């Protein structure tokens, strides 16, 4: 528990530093103050991609090793990924309303594919909630975790593959399209959000471990109160 408190403490400090960088970086010449949303939007979606990648890795490792800790990792990462995808979508819509004049554009592949990714992992969580047996749950969700990750590269590269309203990546192998101050602020926030992801993952996997332990205790209690067979009761 102390480990998690320390992690959340570090994450809070990093987020405070990130906020300071986000608020002191110069605003964009055209977008004005709305450009600061990038400091939440980009880190959130970067973490969503990372989280779903970790879900796929955990799923593959569970199918290979059959160790429960990989299932915990995969499921925790999917839940955190859905949270960050939701934040990314929301901040993107706020920015879109201010800059594009509308919150959503159905013709934009990045927007629609991100929404689809959100629903795919909601399906993953729904599947986990529908299964009671931990091994069956782990096995089925591991398979879906591997299937689901196939669309993640499509979401990432959709801005390069299709004609889109959404701009292409700001950081490329040949350099950045952003001014240095804005880039530094964004990268500090990416680092801060990544620490927050680690803290959330540590907390969620711990909760999953406690849930599993509780479930085992419940089963033992259930066995203890099972009524005796008639043949064992004798002549009462």
């Amino acid at each position, binding site marked *: 528990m102390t480990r998690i408190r320390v992690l959340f403490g570090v994450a809070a400090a990093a987020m405070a530093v990130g906020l300071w960088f986000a608020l002191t970086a110069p605003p964009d010449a055209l977008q004005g103050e709305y450009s600061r949303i990038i400091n939440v939007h980009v880190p959130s979606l970067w973490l969503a991609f990372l989280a779903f990648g970790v879900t796929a890795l955990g799923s593959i490792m569970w*199918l290979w090793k059959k160790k429960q800790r990989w299932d915990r990792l995969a499921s925790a990462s999917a839940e955190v990924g859905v949270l960050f995808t939701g934040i990314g979508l929301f901040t993107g819509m706020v920015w879109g309303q201010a800059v594009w004049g509308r919150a959503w554009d159905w013709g934009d*592949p990045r927007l*629609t*594919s991100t929404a*689809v*990714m959100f*629903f*795919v992992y*909601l*399906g993953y969580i*729904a*599947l986990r909630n*529908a*299964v009671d047996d931990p091994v*069956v749950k782990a*096995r*089925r969700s*591991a*398979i*879906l975790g*591997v*299937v*689901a990750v*196939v*669309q993640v590269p*499509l979401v990432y590269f959709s801005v390069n*593959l299709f004609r889109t309203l959404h701009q292409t990546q700001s950081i490329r192998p040949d350099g950045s399209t952003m001014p240095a101050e804005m880039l530094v602020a964004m990268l500090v926030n990416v680092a801060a959000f990544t620490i927050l992801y680690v803290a959330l993952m540590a907390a969620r996997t711990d909760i999953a471990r406690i849930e599993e332990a509780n479930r085992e205790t419940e089963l033992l209690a259930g066995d203890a109160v099972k009524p005796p067979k008639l043949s064992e009761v004798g002549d009462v």
Partner: protein
Amino acid sequence: MSFWNQSLEIARVDLRVERRLGDTLRIVLPFAVVALMVFPLSLGIELATISRIGPAVFWALGILFGMQVALRLSAADTQERRDLHALLGVDPAARFVGRVLSGGVLMLAFLVVLFIAMVLIYGPTLPSGSWSTVLLGTVLFSIGLTELGTLAGEITAGLRNRTALASLIVAPLALPLVIGASQSLEALSRGAGILPWVLLMLATDLALAVIGVGMARPLEEATR
């Protein structure tokens, strides 16, 4: 029995069961055609709009009712049948391929009839070369959707809320197929090439085939 013979035998039995029950062509297809008629009824006498939205409605209904076709096959695959296949030593990957083959044939028949119904009801202005593009798109769409339906059917086998859960899994993952199929027709209308969209569908089909064959054994264990 070789891998392909096993797959073909599974597909043959699936299609024979479907011929006896006739769920796809006697129930799902008429229901889809009725749904096709709901849109013009709700729009009124807007002939230009009705004509324009025809292909989009076709693909939207294609995915919604196609999911029913794909999932219906896996619903008919009972635990007893799975156990029998396992006892007979049928390769799980061959089972997956066989199911995709039979489902793909059914889906293709379903979509072809639905497309003809859409043309008759909506009267869309189709550019030259549309029929071959639609046929190619429909074949690739059918294969991909059946692969997804088979995977989702196996993952959700025996669960409560199975139909809703499997649909929730299939619908978002089928988006590359819907985009590829609808945009290829759109590209043809603009006079642009259809190759990128065909490649998108082909890549999705191949990725799902690799996953389906690779995951066949864990999938079989997952249903136990």
